Structures are given as C-alpha cells and as structure tokens.
C-alpha cells in the first residue's frame, strides 16, 4: 500500500501519518467512546431500572433505526467500502446533537454525581472528534484512490440532519444511552472491518 503525505501544501514540519496509523487512531478512539457509553448505561441501569415487563416492546425507538446498518460480520464485509464509510459517518453525525443535549440535562440535574456528568461531556466531545477523525481518514482514502470521491458531500452535516432532526427528542435518557451504546459498538466494529479490508497487513 503506497502511503502519501497528508500535508498537501508542502508545509514544513508536517508529520507523515500512514493510513494504517490513522485507522488505528480512530479505532482506539471509537473503542474508548464505546467504553464510556457502556459505563454510563450500566450506571443508569443501577439507578433507573426500566420496567422490564414490556412483553411486546422489543425496539427501543432509537432515532438511528432509520439508518440501514449491516447486522453482522458477513454483511459488513459484503457491502461496498463507500457504503460502509457512509454508514459510519451517518451514525456519527446523527449523535452529535442528542449527546450534547443529554450532557446539558445531566449537568443541570444535580442528583447525578460529577463522575457521570464528566463522562457525558467526554462522550459528547468524543463523538465530535471521532467524526472529524473519520473525515480525515476518508479524505486520505480518497486521495489515495481507494474509494471514490462520491461521499465527499457527507462532510456537511446539515444535509443529513434535516431528515431526522426532532426524532431524538422523543427518547428518554435511558433509551438514549441504550441506543448510543449499541451504535458506538457498531461504529467500532465497522471501522475495524474497514481497516482490515483496506490495509490488512497492519495488525489484522
């Protein structure tokens, strides 16, 4: 795999980072994000046990359920790289606002301890940072000609948010955490699959 420099303007002191390295970074980032969401969800389960007797209710009404995601390893390996990348970006974009508002709620309600409040802030920041990181990976892949440039317009989140702007407000906090825990796990797995499809010689 030929690796090229990120610094297109010929800036001095610009460090060269390979695509595999970039992938490793975003994967680590996503793993940490999922860990935090897992912790927060467990804490919520301790304090706010939802009613378990929901016989007919299987779905948690996640606002991202409209995004079609591969439900297993084979499906994730089968779909095109561009499609998989698009799914990742869509998920990341969809969670930016809800997590921010969740953190605001947490900060206001003082019955939550500082630990949970810090975690919610961290989670909110991380989804933002991860999106930027994945954006960089996409740019590099496009520059290397690995994927087609057709998904460049995903960089504008406004294009995506208009469709499901208000649905996430209907979720309660517990559902929100449950849905995000699952989606962060999806993001982590998709990134790992993508990496081993594109740069398999580096630790796959």
């Amino acid at each position, binding site marked *: 795999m030929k690796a090229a420099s990120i610094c297109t303007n010929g800036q001095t002191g610009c460090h060269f980072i390979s695509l595999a390295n970039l992938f490793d970074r975003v994967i680590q980032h996503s793993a940490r994000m999922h860990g935090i969401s897992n912790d927060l969800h467990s804490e919520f389960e301790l304090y706010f046990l939802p009613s378990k007797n929901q016989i007919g209710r*299987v779905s948690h009404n996640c606002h991202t359920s409209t995004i079609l995601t591969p*439900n*297993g*390893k084979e499906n994730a*390996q089968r779909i095109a790289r561009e499609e998989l990348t698009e799914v990742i970006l869509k998920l990341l974009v969809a969670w930016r606002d809800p997590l921010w508002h969740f953190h605001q709620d947490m900060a206001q309600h003082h019955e939550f301890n500082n630990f949970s409040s810090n975690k919610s802030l961290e989670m909110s920041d991380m989804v933002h940072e991860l999106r930027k990181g994945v954006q960089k990976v996409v740019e590099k892949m496009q520059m290397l000609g690995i994927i087609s440039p057709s998904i460049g317009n995903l960089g504008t989140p406004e294009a995506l948010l208009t469709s499901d702007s208000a649905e996430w407000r209907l979720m309660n906090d517990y559902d929100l955490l449950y849905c995000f825990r699952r989606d962060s796990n999806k993001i982590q797995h998709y990134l*790992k*699959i993508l990496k*081993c499809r594109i740069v398999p010689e580096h630790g*796959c």
Partner: protein
Amino acid sequence: MLCVLSAAGVCSSTSAPGRPSLLGCRSPEKETFSCWWEPGSDGGLPTEYRLFYMRENLRGVHECPDYVSAGKNSCFFDKEHTSIWAEYNLRVVATNALGNASSDFLINDVMKYVKPYPPVNVTVLANSSTPSAYLQIQWKSPPNVDVKSGWVTANYELRIKQNGKEWKNVETGAQNVLNLYSVDPGASYMVQVRCKLDHGNWSEWSNTTFVKIPKHHQIENRFWILVFASALIPLLATICILVLKRKLLLSLKQWFLPPVPGPLIRGVDVQLFKSGRPEDVVNALIGNQNFPPMMPWTDQVEEYLLVSDSDARQLTDPYKCHKKKENFIIELHLESKIQHRESTPGQNAWEKAEESKDETGDLESSDVSQSESNLSNMEPTKLLIEEQGCPSTEKAALTNVIQPLANTTYVDFQQRENFWDNSPTQAEYSRVKEVNGETILILNNENILPGSDVQEQEVNGEVKAPDDYSRVKEVNSDLVLLQKHDSADSYCKKKEDHYTEWISQRPTTPHEGEHSKGLCSEMVESGYVDSVPGFSIK
C-alpha cells in the same frame, strides 16, 4: 387425577407439564449464539419443548432453527439467524397431552452473552539457555474466532502456579506469546490461559499445562568449580613459595607496593613542624610569601589597632601594658586566624566560608589579609605572653584606645557604618569557653588550636553573633562572663533592657558615644557592651 398409592408405590398420575425455565445463552465468537433451558416437571407424559422468538426489526414470531447442534434442551442460532445488534425475545413452551406451559420471556442482546472458548494449543517450553532459565509460553486463539478480519479483538490472560504457591496472573493483551523469566530452575509449574473478546466475558481457563524446568546449571556449576580449582592451585603454590622465600617476597612487595613518599615543601624543613612551636610554623610557611599592600580604611570613625614589634616595651606602663595585652590578643587572634587559614584547604575556602556565611565578606577577607601583613612584620618572639607585669584591671580591659604607629601597619576592626546598618556581625570574636545556664564564660587568651572545628565555631559564632546578645556580668582580665539572655531580633527593634552583644576580644567601655551611631540610643544608655571591638570615640 388422583394418585392412587398402591403397595408397589407406583404413581400413575399425569398432569400438564411444569414451566420450563430459560437458563441462558452464549455466543462464542459474536457470530452465532445458543440458548439453553431447563424443563420443569413433565407431568408423567411425553413432553415436547419448543422455542419461539421475536426479534427487533423482524416481524412475527419465529421458531428456533436448530434444536440439535447445541445439545439437549437447547436452541442454536446460526449466522443467518443471528443479528448482533438486535434484541431477541425468547420463550420456551412445554407441551404434553394435557396442556402446555410457557417459560418466562428472555429479552437479550447478543452482545451481553459473548463468551468465547478457552485458547487452544497451549505450549510451554522451558528454555534453559544462559544466563537464566525462562519459560516460553504460546497459545492459539480459540477456534472460529475471527481475529483476522478485525471483527473481534481477543485479549488474553495467563496464570501460572508453582507447586505449593499461589496463582500469579499475567495480562498479555492481544499477543499469543509470553516469555516468563522469573522462574526457579528445578521447579514444576502449571500454566493456564483464558481469553476475552472485546468487552465480553472471560472464557474458562484452558486445560492445565505442566512443565518442569531442568536443573541444567548443575552441570555447568561443576564445570566452573573445576575451572576455579585449577586456577587456585597455582595461586596457592605461589603463595607458599613466597612465604618460604622471604627475600623474594620482599622484593615483590617492593615492586607491587612502593613506599609512599613523604611531603616535600620547598624551603621548609619538615622537622620544624615536629617541634611544635607555632612561630616556627608560621615563619616557615608565611615568611616566603608576599602580601598585597595594605589599604587603610578611610572612614569617618577610624580606630586603629596598635600592632608593634618593639622589643623595649615597658611593662609597668599600664597603658602600654594594656596595649601590649591588646597587641597580644590581637596578635594571637590574628595568628589564630592565620592558623585557621593554614588549616583550611586553601585561601579560597576560608574566604568563601566567610563570604558565604557573612555578608561582609570583603571585610573579613581584608581583615585576614591585613592581619597577615601584620604578622609578617612581627618577630615571632613577641608572641610570648607577658601578662605578669600587667596589672589586671577591669577597666583596663575595657578601654581600648589605639593609636596608630607610624612604622607599622594597622588593622581597622571597626565595622563600617554602612555595614553597621546591616547585620552587625563581628570582626573579632572570642571563643566561648563554657556556657553555664545563663552565664557564658569567654576566654580571651586561650590558645586557639588550629583546626577545622574552631574555624567552624568561629564562623558560626559570626553568624550567631548578631542574634544573640548577652549581658556582661563580670569582666576579668582574661575572662568575660556573659549572662546569656533571650536574643533580640535585631539591634533596634526590641526595646528591652537586656541587650548585650557578644563581647569581642576587647570588651569596651559601657558607653560608646558617637561611634555607636548605628546603635539604638537605648542600648547605649543602658550601658551594655556592644559588639564593636572596643572603640570609643571621644
């Protein structure tokens, strides 16, 4: 139906089945999963168990696709039927001819039930190469776990136990090998490994692998013992020969350990030092050197110390006698200073010690250099104590008016004015002989021996002098008794009556007049001895 108990005790009642209970599920590689249930009472009739499920994003109720692969009372969901991020709603229904019973719902998320099988092919090799033995442990990920595609990341944990000791756990992250160095040769070990997929549950421990580390070093040790023995024998033989032939030994000793030459200073006779007379020492060492020319202090208040080497000194003259005593004291002091200087490693050290501990370094070093030049003009014979002829008067000891001599150099021991404002440290000091409670005994004519302790004491004395004031209790010709009191912070701050300063070698008259410009007026009036070595300005 009622159960009719017969003598044979055979119960022939039947009923609807009891409720089965779902035990749990497990996904070993995050791609498939299986669930197990426990049947209730079967009611005496053949009972059939069926599992139904509902799934998120899947309409309708479905039945278990595989009842066989996972064993009895189980349901196996293969890859097509497994959706990792979807919730399943399961229930088991037991049916017999008389009725049916349904288990509780089990709503699960497959991610929660991920638990892999233990790692396989655990090999342990005892590598006993130099320098020390170590264990090489390797294993493989459990079957069906797809690490290659990045779908799951396996983390391993290893534990090792020596016979008779506790288990020690080692986390190895994602790697499949481990070299363990902290092993004892000859000991037996048991090793087990387990793994975990991402955030899932730990697997069970693998089967125990046993290993024994050979005592390879025994053979090596014997070899080294032989080598040492073969080297020792000629050595012992050599020693014996040397002992027997003394002359040979001596010449060898001469060659190996030559005698250390004694010190050699040009122009100095070493024997002179052995005589122990200080004047000889001083003359021998200092007499050859040239000192820089003296710069007299030009100050408003100048007091001079009379240093004379005149032979024809009339002892009956009280003034002269006093002066002589002063001279003596000064000389002695200077000499002691010189001696201190000699005893220190070098001039720099002394000066540095002075300067570092005293802000008026210039004064001190110049004092010393002045004193040196004084001494150079003196004859050694003048240092004899001639106090017999001098009447010892308290007053005499306290007065100190010094007149400059034309042909001698002088030393100004007064502290300068600006210096006065700062820390009123001493240029001269006596050695404290004894501290007894509140009384401090100072000896003026004690022959201060050269040595580092004196230097240190004096230096310390300089440091401490401004802080600690005492009251003069009694002044003798040689002794000044000081009564020690609580110290004042600074000269002028406390308005107490108990001020005294450290008595210098020449205690002064109680009142000091103008020269005590820097002093507080109270102190002067209360009639205490001040630190300035004996100058009264009339």
